[in-house]
């Protein structure tokens, strides 16, 4: 990350410029609300889904091939996913206070997302308690698969149940995305940065483990 500092700086400047100058005004929401919702909350939420699903895939590979390299990747993915899920809940909570008028409600989307976060925490606790032995690695792998099974539940919760949380904007069941084109581009840029951040975290974690 330190090595890529100029790249990071350029990305930060670009995204700040994009969010505060290029992004078209949305009259229904103020600037702060939009930043929290569209450009922080959504990328972190997608990232937590993505890392969890990939962690489950690498866990499956570990259970199949019994090569602990896969498990190591899986663990670092879950670490990033847990932080992402936490940030999703945090930014969502702040946005909820500003928009809904409450920090938290027990609707289907928020509850399933909290369950996902707790499963990811359970993974980290189990891996920490068991230590780096095959048993702990296997139990962890199973938990990561359970976490991934929860991901579609989180995503579809707004379609199956009536929630305070808004429905899907991009991955709608029918019809085109309900988002302005420019906003979507900036959202993709923010998502790209979050993905890149994930890669950096995972890479440094793997290197650290290798050096130990």
């Amino acid at each position, binding site marked *: 990350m330190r090595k890529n500092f100029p790249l990071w700086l350029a990305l930060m400047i670009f995204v700040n410029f994009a969010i505060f100058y290029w992004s078209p005004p949305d009259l229904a929401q103020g600037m702060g609300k939009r930043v929290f919702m*569209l450009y922080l909350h959504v990328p972190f939420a997608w990232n937590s889904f993505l890392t969890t699903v990939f962690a489950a895939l690498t866990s499956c590979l570990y259970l199949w091939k019994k090569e602990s390299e896969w498990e190591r990747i899986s663990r670092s993915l879950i670490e990033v996913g847990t932080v992402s899920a936490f940030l999703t809940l945090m930014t969502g909570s702040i946005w909820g206070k500003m*928009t809904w*008028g409450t920090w938290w*409600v027990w609707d289907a989307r928020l509850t*399933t997302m909290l369950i996902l976060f707790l499963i990811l925490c359970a993974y980290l606790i189990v891996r920490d308690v068991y230590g780096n032995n095959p*048993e702990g690695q296997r139990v962890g792998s*199973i938990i990561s698969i359970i976490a991934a099974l929860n991901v579609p539940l989180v995503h579809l919760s707004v379609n199956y149940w009536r929630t*305070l949380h*808004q429905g899907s904007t991009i991955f709608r069941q029918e019809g085109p995305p*309900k988002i302005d084109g420019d906003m979507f581009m900036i959202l993709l840029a923010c998502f790209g940065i979050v993905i890149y951040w994930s890669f950096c975290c995972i890479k440094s974690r793997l290197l650290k483990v290798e050096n130990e």
Partner: protein
Amino acid sequence: MLSFLEKARKKPTTMNRTMISLIMAFLAILWLVFSGIQDASLFFYFPTEVEQSITSDEMEQDARIRIGGFVQPDSISVEDEIIFFVLTDDERGVVRVRYEGILPDMFAEGQGAVAEGIFPSEVDSGHFFADEWIFYADDIFVKHGEEYSKEHLDKTEMKKRFGSGIPSGTLE
């Protein structure tokens, strides 16, 4: 097959036990989530549904419920720091809401909102619609749509969409 069973019986390892408890925990989560489909997962009722259950005499008084819809344009009125407004939906159902307290910043006409409260069995007759069903809300949430657009529904357009849903002369 049998040898596998025998092995499992002979060696109830921590692994097996952990697996079983994990699977049980997962099933418990699934059960918790899906058993709530009837009540808890329905975060709110639409005004149309509330109206229907009132007319069919099924609405329970003093039971805490949430009603969600759009705030009817031109329906907000304030009397002695008590806020009255009307919640409506696409099917033109109408529920009158009474609320005492601070409204969320985003609360506005035409905006989605969820009100939490009760239909009290004893209504103080001092108010001007004592004979009607009024929802006594003690919590208001603003519901945000999934649309992110530059445009904004203006007031005339909102009236076109929801304006005729309300019986005339009920709110001034």
